[in-house]
């Protein structure tokens, strides 16, 4: 009987190990979640072991001296001094606040402008040089310029983040709106989507009031903290009401075109929003890195400031601790935004990517 012959020639039962090896060698075989985590942990373990080995003492000598690379034990032992003496939490909050401030400005201008550019291709053509320039210019080169324009205070740091990120957000938002398939526009049109000027004006006024508040109170708060005043104060005459008027006008001009057409308000904006938010999340991660650039020069607190202080006067352990903390913080914020994405866009099958 052929069946029994086959049964004889094949090995009785493949072992668990060879079974696993077979799967591991299969292209695009998806491992179970637990196994994925194990591999991630294995990498971290390996990194720790290598770190430990190159900093361990062998016959009283270290491969890497302490001032270059402290051992894991030395690094983690210095955490209390980082937390208490260097006021880590205050610095972390200061860094985050700067990024958030600059980022809020970026979102407030980049998103509506990007939506308009995504709908009206002539606006897009007009803004294209700006976005090409903004995305190609070396960001680090902007630090000295922002110091010339905005001084050394908080305004400079916020404006640096704004200038560094606005072109990306503008570009990504434009693309997100343009990526909405034409068939949704056709559907909207044939169901009667039209311009609603009066309603648009009412809604845009609401946005304009929010902008006025941000520009007046926001700038006022920043200005109060900074000891030197640069371009902004001179430009606006440091007048609270002038800032408010500027915000009011800007908010209205940016939001009226969006709010005054049902197709933009009810179709294009909501359909592009998940993409827009996702791009914001990615740019936020980058912005969190940029802020270190601004903070290594003349800051009084901030994670970048702690790093540069630790490099100058020590302890060097703090540099490594800060790097780990910054990474964890950025990762945590990223995951937090993802959770919000899943909550607010339940219709997206996967709020991944």
């Amino acid at each position, binding site marked *: 009987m052929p069946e029994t012959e086959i049964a004889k020639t094949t090995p009785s039962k493949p072992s668990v190990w060879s079974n696993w090896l077979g799967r591991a060698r299969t292209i695009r075989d998806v491992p179970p979640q637990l196994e994925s985590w194990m591999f991630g942990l294995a990498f971290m373990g390996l990194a720790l072991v290598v770190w430990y080995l190159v900093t361990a003492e062998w016959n009283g000598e270290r491969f890497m001296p302490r001032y270059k690379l402290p051992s894991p034990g030395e690094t983690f032992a210095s955490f209390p001094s980082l937390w208490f003496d260097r006021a880590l939490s205050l610095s972390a909050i200061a860094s985050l606040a700067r990024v958030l401030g600059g980022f809020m400005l970026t979102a407030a201008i980049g998103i509506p402008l990007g939506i308009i550019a995504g709908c009206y291709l002539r606006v897009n053509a007009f803004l294209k040089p700006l976005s090409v320039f903004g995305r190609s210019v070396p960001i680090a080169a902007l630090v000295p310029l922002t110091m010339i324009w905005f001084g050394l205070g908080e305004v400079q740091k916020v404006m640096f983040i704004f200038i560094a990120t606005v072109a990306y957000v503008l570009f990504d938002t434009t693309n997100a709106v343009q990526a909405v*398939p034409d*068939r*949704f526009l*056709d*559907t*909207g*049109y*044939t*169901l*009667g*989507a*039209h311009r609603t000027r009066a309603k648009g004006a009412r809604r845009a006024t609401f946005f304009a009031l929010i902008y006025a508040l941000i520009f007046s109170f926001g700038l006022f708060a920043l200005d109060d903290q900074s000891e030197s005043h640069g371009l902004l104060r001179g430009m606006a005459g440091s007048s609270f009401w002038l800032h408010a008027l500027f915000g009011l006008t800007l908010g209205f001009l940016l939001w009226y075109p969006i709010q005054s057409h*049902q197709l933009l308000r*009810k*179709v294009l904006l*909501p*359909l592009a*929003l998940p993409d827009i938010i996702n791009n914001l999340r990615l740019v936020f991660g980058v912005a969190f890195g940029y802020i270190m650039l601004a903070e290594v020069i003349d800051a009084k607190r901030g994670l970048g400031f702690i790093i540069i202080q630790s490099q100058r006067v020590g302890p060097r352990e703090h540099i490594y601790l800060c790097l780990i903390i910054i990474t964890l913080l950025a990762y945590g914020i990223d995951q937090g935004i993802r959770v919000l994405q899943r909550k607010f*866009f*339940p*219709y997206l*099958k996967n709020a991944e990517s």
Partner: protein
Amino acid sequence: MPSPEPSAGMPPCVLEDMPPPPAGMPLIVDFENVTKTYDAGTPRAFTSITDINFKVEDRPKIGEFVGVLGPSGCGKSTVLRLIAGLAPHFPQTMGKVFVNEQPVQGPGPDRGFVFQDYSNFPNRTVIDNVAFGLECAHVEEKERKAKAMEWIQKVGLDAKRDGLKYPHQLSGGMNQRVAIARTLIMQPKIILMDEPFGALDPTTRQSMQDLLVSLWRELEATVFFVTHDIAEAVYLSDRMYIFSPSPGTIRHQLKITPADRPARQMQAERSFQESVLAVRDILEKLELEKAALAAKGSPK
């Protein structure tokens, strides 16, 4: 049980040439020498339809079902989108398009459109998708939701169970039902359907055809229906336009027995199948013509 012969009193399915419309009758759609050329004046110029002429009379309280058939790429969709006023097909390069004796100015809710790919808004629930048109027309929320629920039932979905679902949770057939409800809730006098059932399996397709016939009776609208399925076109149509190969122009106008029995029953009748075969012969000749044109055009 489908009977092989038509039962007594029911007319067999017949094809005959369309008589010209009686003069003086109001027209709902009127094409006069319509030509559409893309990128005119450039080397990429492409003429999609040329010299299209047809008139569909306005029959209040009855409406009409106009099937549009033709070889692929002959500009059937262009004709539909010209009626709807949708870019980039609208506006036409030459000629005139009238709807209700007025030149078409752009898209509007008086001309509903059902697309092949459903295009329900993914961010809206079924109810909010169906209510979209009313929302645009500033109908109060309570009223438009009640009306949407009503239409969801009418297209054969369970308003309670499916109303709060999102399009990605529905099957293709259910999505197309939502798209139909979304279009018909506006009670358009003209409904344009561009291969609406092209992506559905044959069984779903037949039930959708029956649904369409029953809803259409209630709406009394004029329906333009583009399809590649000859049986579907013969079953649904009162009138059929058959297009020539690209650049498309209307080659045949046929008058067809309207659908008065369920699709499964009527489509099994011999006279129906003979009509389908007759139309298939016409289309095959046109496809041969298209191949001949392509062979002549290729050695440039």
